[in-house]
């Protein structure tokens, strides 16, 4: 389908540009690592406390790095006004959205791939005990952040105060996503892991992503065209 093909072209363009400089991935991975270090000083070396705190720390790290990565990636479309070029092209505006969201998911996922083992290592948290379930929930979470984030980062592209408004808008909207992610991770990391609860929240997150995917596709063009 040409919508997907053009989306792929746009996503590949973003990834190609990122691969050249690797600016976002490197700075975000470093940032995530710094967050992990700060967390480990903030909490006592008590295993039980860390088990309780690790899920929250992981998702806070994803929230922060995700938001900054979104800001920086869309900043690139502001240089030379290339977002205007994309919106002017005869490609469906949905392709522009899907392409950006796809590229953002890949970028944030790349950061997560490094951040999760780092957290597991430095906090001595058993994050990797259930790798499949954790991978699924992190992927779903990153997709959600990229979907909603891309809509608003694109909307805010030419708006005053966009740097601070992006988190102001994103965080309240993403609360269900973060709660679902944290609860899944907590269920996986608990002394007595509860896979039922984990899967409940994974399904919750799946429905959330589906609902917001549809909503984003529906509203993207109206929001981005002035």
């Amino acid at each position: 389908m040409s919508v997907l093909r053009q989306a792929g072209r746009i996503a590949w363009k973003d990834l190609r540009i990122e691969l050249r400089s690797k600016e976002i991935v490197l700075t975000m991975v470093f940032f995530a690592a710094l967050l992990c270090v700060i967390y480990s000083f903030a909490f006592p070396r008590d295993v039980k406390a860390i088990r309780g705190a690790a899920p929250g720390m992981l998702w806070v790290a994803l929230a922060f790095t995700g938001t900054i990565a979104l800001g920086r990636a869309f900043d690139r479309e502001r240089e030379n006004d290339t977002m205007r070029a994309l919106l002017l092209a005869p490609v469906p505006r949905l392709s522009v959205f899907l392409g950006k969201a796809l590229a953002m998911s890949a970028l944030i996922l790349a950061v997560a791939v490094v951040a999760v083992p780092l957290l597991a290592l430095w906090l001595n948290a058993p994050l990797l005990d259930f790798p499949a379930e954790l991978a699924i929930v992190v992927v779903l979470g990153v997709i959600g952040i990229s979907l909603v984030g891309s809509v608003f980062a694109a909307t805010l592209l030419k708006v005053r105060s966009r740097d601070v408004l992006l988190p102001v808008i994103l965080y309240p909207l993403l609360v269900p996503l973060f709660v679902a992610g944290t609860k899944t991770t907590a269920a996986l990391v608990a002394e007595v892991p509860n896979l039922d609860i984990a899967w409940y929240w994974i399904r919750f997150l799946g429905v959330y992503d589906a609902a917001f995917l549809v909503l984003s596709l529906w509203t993207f063009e109206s929001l981005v065209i002035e």
Partner: protein
Amino acid sequence: MTKPASDVPEARLVEGGKLGGDAPDDKARASKGAPVKGSPLGLVLPIMTIVAGIVVAAAAWWVFVKAPVQYGYTADGRLNGSSLFFTQKIFYFHVGHAFMLFAAVGVAGIASAIFLKTRNPKWDDIAAAAVDEAVMFGAAVLVTGSLWAKAAWDVWWNWEPRLTMSLLLWLILVGYALVRKFAGPSADRVAAGMAIFGMVGVPFIYKMVGEDSHPPSGANGVVMNLGTEYKTAFGLSALAFLLWFLVLTIMRVQSTRAEREVRELRERGLDLGVLS
């Protein structure tokens, strides 16, 4: 060949310029000398205000006179005697307010969706008014909820479902208000997006806080099972605050519309050279 002169019949051009077009009914009204109408609602608002007043009075009577008193217990199980009567009754106002927050997010979301499709500013006025009112009411909810929690459970805040839900809804509304204030000229469009996404997020928030309560009570976490005596007082107070919210929102929409009309009239005056 220059374009023909203005098509507003009674206006005189001071300069050789061409006027912009106007909405036809405005021109017709202006040329007839009739005042520009303020609100399409006319009689509805005063009637609604009176009804709201009556419902509030009824609710207050029911809450303070008819509904039975419920005693609160401190954390270690002792009866919390002081100021018991009023702090327990806060419950009725608190939950009514929370329903109002639901309504605000719903109204803002739907009005914003219509605004994005039609780009007619009157829908944006509705969304902005609803959110402004709800932010202030919502702040009141959270403070009173906090007081109740202190009286009933001896803590200023606990993450019980209704309170959490109110807080999350309120945060969405505050975010909207901040966006409107600081996003510059396209604030209406950006805020509309947030309202729509916020509205879609509400069912997820509801489900999420329901699962969160101790002990878990599912979706019933937010709407408790109550005895009938409580239910009437509760229903009346919820209705009372919903009505008041609507009344105040409508008033605010009217005032925004009046501002807009004054501004447009001034622009036309400047165009015509009548004003300077």
